């Protein structure tokens, strides 16, 4: 990813089983802020110390929308582990968030 991205490093653990998530937003709209909160909460709960969230503001660099093929915000893209998963919306539906991201840390069951 280019240097234009706003990256919020939540943890600084080594890669390996490190999840790599990218959240596309436009500015600080209520939907986007909600999405950030929802994503962080879910990650803290299920992936504490094993995740990395990159927040990309498409208003700052609109051309990234074409490059990354993002038309709707907020959109979360799970870049690692593969396969790539894409979730659209403010992530207020927690069940769909967990199912969509396949957020199941080793040895635990879903909420």
């Amino acid at each position, binding site marked *: 990813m280019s240097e234009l991205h706003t990256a919020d490093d939540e943890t600084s653990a080594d890669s390996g089983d490190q999840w790599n998530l990218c959240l*596309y937003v*436009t500015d600080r*709209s209520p*939907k986007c802020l*909600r*999405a950030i909160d*929802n994503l962080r909460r879910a990650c803290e709960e299920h992936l504490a110390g094993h995740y990395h969230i990159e927040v990309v503001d*498409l*208003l700052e660099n*609109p*051309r990234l*929308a*074409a490059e990354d*093929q*993002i*038309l*709707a*915000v*907020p*959109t979360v893209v799970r870049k690692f582990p593969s396969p790539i*998963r*894409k*979730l*659209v*919306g*403010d*992530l*207020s*539906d927690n069940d*769909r*968030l967990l*199912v*969509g991201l396949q957020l199941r840390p080793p040895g635990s069951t879903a909420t």
Partner: protein
Amino acid sequence: MKNTVLTSLTESAVGPDLEKAPTGIHGLDQITGGGLPRGRVTLVAGSAGAGKTLLGLEFLVAGARQYGEPGVLVSFEESEDKVTLNVRSLGFDLDQLRRDGLLVMLSFRLDPSDFVATGEFDLQPLFAILDDAIERVGAKRVVLDTIEVLFGAFGDDSIVRSELSRLARWLDDRGVTAIVTGERGDRNLTRNGIEEYVTDCVIVLDHRVTEEISTRRLRVVKYRGSAHGTNEYPFLISARGFVVLPITSIALNYAASEERISTGIARLDHMLSGGLFRGSTLLVSGTAGTGKTSLGAHILNAACARGERGLLVLFEESPAQFLRNMRSLGLDLQQWIDAGLLRIWAARPSELGLETHLAVLARLIEDETPSVAVLDGIAAIGQGILAAEATSMVARKIDLLKSREITTLVTALGQGEGTSTETLSSLADTWLLLRNVETDGERNRLLFVLKSRGTAHSNQVREFVLTSHGVELVDVYVGAAGVLAGSARLAQQATERDAEVRQASDLDRRLRELRRNVVEREAHLVVVQDELDAERAEIDRIDLREGHQAADTEADRSAMATRRWADAAPSNGGQR
């Protein structure tokens, strides 16, 4: 957004001076009276492969190249490379336009299975990227192709719906002239009813196959604030792009030349007061084998002999067959082909499809720039096709030729005035009818001039004779027995000639006879005169002798008396 809503409400009644953005598609601009509504959104709806993308691209390319209006293309169906490749064959170099800063292309591939919807969202990135692209090149035109793909892509269509509605208003607000394309739906114009948001102009494209012949049609369903052609206009996608050929608009504004050109048949030129007007249309109808094609060959031959270019479209024959047949009439057309003046193209319309046939013709006209064209055997166009469609296609061909001021001869199979050729006759400036007349066990061809606009023309019938040195027109014999042609004419002519000869020799004989009589009588007169003279002479002679005798007698008597010493006595005897 409140502002936008208010603006669109107050501006709902647009005046007659609505500004338009030309599409560069000639026929479409004619139908819409100048193009699409400037600064507004136009919906182009059609099924897959109907030509929506091409229409949008031509709009962008024309804007960039001809009208100084750069554009943005957002494709939701195909990649930029693929779009570029698809239209390269039409002569659109999108890469060059992009390098020249006249076009921005963006593409999005949206697979519904990619996304999981997890709550509220909006399409702000689309707005942002459009805004960025418009700013980047100063775009005045935007095409979104096919925006309906967004439905179903994110799981929640109600949000997509409201976002597209917002997008339409945003585009209006932005002042760009936009085209959004939509898939044709079963009940609505588009599958997802996006015509609800696009209220200014709606164009529907249709691709129909009737009896295995495909025809594309275009219709302007709605054009707020502007008059527009409401018919379905056939169009075609040719090697040069999108071509709409509205009948009504082309037909009536072409130039009219005063120049006359020869048909190659002197007597026919004479019948038409000196030939055909350049750029006029000559319709030759007649039954099979009446010599329609030969007439066409003459016109082409005459044109090429003048150094002009000719185009021959054969609907029923092969070029080789045509050339051979014309050679038998003493017309060597091969020399003009060799000289590069004549181009022959033979194809059955039913093989290519009507629109393709028209497209090829259009291309040939552009390539060959002929001054004379002959469409031979257009009856074949109706084979296996609905007659109305075929006729309208021929009409468009004639229009096309007429608009280029090409003198055109069209031959059509038809019995006479009351057939399907009638519909074409209104397009023709001159209409010749060739008719076979069957008499005395033979068929002879007669030529009539049914009409000739702007020309004093002969009202007489001529016999049309095909000879080894071309077509000849011969006066027919009109007499008590009606119109005679062929052998009957020849026989009649022979009879008349005989009679004349006979009459001449009769007179001669009579004259000679009379002269002889005169000579005879004069001779006779001389003889009679001689006799008369002789008789007169005789009379004189006799008179003289009598006188002498009397005197002699008197003398004798007195001599006797003297001798007898007698008195004078009456003498009753004596000689006379």
